[in-house]
Each structure stands twice: as C-alpha cells, then as structure tokens.
C-alpha cells in the first residue's frame, strides 16, 4: 500500500523534470557523424569522381534501389554513365557504403528528404554527387591502386614499388 503511494509521489515529481522531447522542426536533434541518412557520391581530394562503377553497391543493395551504368573516359578510367538511387525503396541499411571499395558512396546525417511526389525520390547522379570528399578527406583510390591509367603508370602509386623488370630476374 505504501509502495503505491510512493510510486504516485515519484511519478508526480516527474512533472518538474527536464523534458526528453526534442521539439523537432524548431529544434534539430544531434545526429552522429556516421548516421545512416541520405546517400551521396563523393569526390576525391583532387576533385575527380571516386565512383569506379564497379556495381558492388548495386549488388549489395538488399532492395535493389541502386542502378548504374559503367563507362570509361579517355584515360581508361571507369566512371558511372548514370547513377540512380530510388529513395522510395532505399532502407538506409548502409550495405552500399560497406561494399564500396573506393569510399565513393556514403551515407550522411540528413534524413529530411520528404516529397509529395514519389517520382521526386528517384535521385540521379547530379542529385547524388557532392563536391567534397565526405568522411574520408585524404583518400584517393587512384593514387593508391596499382592500376595504370592515363597520367599514372604502374609503380607510381603511393607505397607501390616499381614493377620488377622481368629480364633482370633471369638466373
């Protein structure tokens, strides 16, 4: 019986506690930097597109909301001809970000993307591509990868030794 009165009193005291509610539109909640919100395509520090159109994100996507078409530029560098994310299907699981070998696709702490028209939720490459490098400011896939493309030959990547001269290996 006394415990009932005690719980009445304890609940009553909550009237003077701080509110837990965040008054959302006026007051924004803090979102962690690794929050899984709106998906972006980032650029490397030199301003080039990071995406190499490997299709891994599209394969990893459990709801098949990513579609893209790979193509090559004059240096033999792959990039997506189009890159389309249907956000009306996206479940923001972040698998695409995990699958991406070049840190190109990233999820951001932004969830305010409501639309009245469903078709407006289909984001094209121009909507997805941002100017910055996102969460990895210094990473440039092409500088590290041991792939020869225009302007960079084999052995010129960071931490890469020059290719072995096969002829010098003769016994």
């Amino acid at each position, binding site marked *: 019986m006394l415990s*009932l009165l005690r*719980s*009445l009193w*304890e*609940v*009553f005291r*909550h*009237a003077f*506690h*701080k*509110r*837990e*509610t965040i*008054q959302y539109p006026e007051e924004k909640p803090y979102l962690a930097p690794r929050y899984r919100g709106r998906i972006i395509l980032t650029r490397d520090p030199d301003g080039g597109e990071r995406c190499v159109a490997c299709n891994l994100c599209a394969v990893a996507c459990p709801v098949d909301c990513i579609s893209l078409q790979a193509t090559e530029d004059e240096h033999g560098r792959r990039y997506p001809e189009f890159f389309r994310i249907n956000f009306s299907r996206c479940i923001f699981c972040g698998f695409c970000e995990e699958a991406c070998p070049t840190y190109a696709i990233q999820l951001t702490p932004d969830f305010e993307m409501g639309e009245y028209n469903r078709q407006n939720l289909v984001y094209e490459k121009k909507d997805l591509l941002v100017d910055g490098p996102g969460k990895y400011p210094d990473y440039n896939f092409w500088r590290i990868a041991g792939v020869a493309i225009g302007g960079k030959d084999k052995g010129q990547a960071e931490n890469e030794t020059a290719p072995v001269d096969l002829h010098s290996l003769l016994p």
Partner: protein
Amino acid sequence: MMANLYPLLIIAVVLFIVLNLAAGLIWVERRLLALWQDRYGPNRVGPFGLGQVLADSVKLFTKEDWIPPFADKGVFVLAPGIIVATALLSFAVIPLAPGFVVADLNIGLLFLLAMSSLGVYSVVLAGWASNNKYSLLGGIRASAQMLSYEVFMGLSLLGVVIQAGSFRLTDIVEAQHKVWFVVPQFLGFVLFLIAGVAETRRLPFDLAEAESELIAGFHSEYSGMKFGMFFVGEYMAVILISAALALLYFGGWLGPVLPAGLWFAIKTLAFICLFILLRAALPRPRFDQLMLWGWKYLLPLALINILVTGAVVLALR
C-alpha cells in the same frame, strides 16, 4: 416567465460545462500524462495544443461508424447511449454552487449512486452485443467488478450521511462549514476514492478494457462516435466522481475569498488530476486480486467505518 426559464438556464449551463469539460479532458489527460512522463504531449494544434480537442472530435465524427454483422444490432447501438445518458443524468443532482443545481433531490446521493450503477449496464450490454469473446470477457469482468465495488462504495458514503443527517447533497455540503468531512471521515474518503476509480473503470481498475489482455475489452468492436460516446461517458464519470469527492469530503463550494463556483471547480479539477496521476503511476492488478481486495478488506473496512461513525455520532448526541 423568468422563473420558468431559470431551471432551463441551469440545465444548459450544466450541460455546457460537463460536455465541454469531458471533451477537454482528452487534451488535459494527454498533456498531464505527458507531463509525468517527461514529454510535452499534444502542443502543436492551436494554442497549447488545445485544438487537439477539436481535431480529435472531428476525427471521431467522420470515422466510419461500423456495426459488425454478427452483433446484436439493437443492443449494440443502445449500449453507448446508456453510459452517456446515466452520466449526464447524475449531474442533475450535483450542485455547482449554492442553489445552482438542476434538481436538489432529498435523495440526491442515492440518485447519484443509482445512476452510476446503471452505467455498468452499458458496459455489460456492449460486451454482450458485440458477440465477441474478448468483449464478453470485458463485460463480465465489468459486471463482477461493479458488483463488488458498488457494495462498499455505497457503504463508505454512509458515514458522511450519518454525520450530515441527510441524503441531499446541498445539506451535506452545508454540514461541512466547521470541518470538511475528509477529516472525521478519512477512512470513508479513501474507500470512496478507491471505489470511485473502480466505478469509472479507469486505470488501475480498467480490467473491463485491459488492452494488454482483452484488446479493448467491451468496446473492441466499437468505432466512430459510438466508441467516442464510451470515451466521453468515461470522462464524464471521472468528472462526476471528482465532483462527488469534492462535494462529500472537501466541502464542495465552501472556501474563503474566491466565489463558491470557483472553489468547487478548483476542487473538482484537482481530483480529476489525481485520477490522471493514478493512471500514470499505478499498474493494473490481477482480476482475483481486485475481487479479493474488494470483498476481504475494503468491504469490512467500510462496515467498521459505519459502525464507528454511528457509535460516535450517537454518543455525542
């Protein structure tokens, strides 16, 4: 001419206050529950979220009012009417201020008890007419609960009646000029409070609804404004019991400085807040615990209360 219109005016005022308060309690309850749960509650629609009342009523009125094909149609429609009718009728004997009462019956208290007891028919019939096992269980629970709590509800009030020497609510209030009945009748007050909460079928005594066990109990099958009438009926019962508590134990409109009606309003609203606090804080007992408490502890206590009160009053005479 004016003499004929005066009772009509009182009826209109009482209806206006009760119906608006019952609707407003939707907002009050949600805001207060939120207050005690460290939230804000509805605060977006209109000033302080008061427009929520309007929004909720518009929603209830425009919802489909569906009668299940397996239901007993006549009774199904009648049931929500009974609860509202009995609740409204009991307000006829509640004096809001000296002389401001629809019908100052000399058996006012009995009328009040009778009307609030009739309200249970609504619940039982709703549970029966829904033709649904959960609803029926809710209805049966309600009838068992009413039966066991009605008994000592009436008995707990007899202490007040013995001291005031009248069943007329105006007389009972006037008898509290020296000291409020909550002091000599504290046990009776506690018993009536418990019985009152059980009578309104609100948490912690909402076993007839018990959403965790019986979906929504007796009103599982109700929708639209029929459901709304159960809702309003429940809130009117809360107002009624709060008003009765204020009248019988806390001196009704008696109080210094402020006008009589205001004192009555303050006391009633305080009890309404207590009802909501009870809902916010206390868990629902098991059904056998509820029955056991009613019959084994509260009924004997009420009887002892009558015995002691009667003996003391007789000795002091």
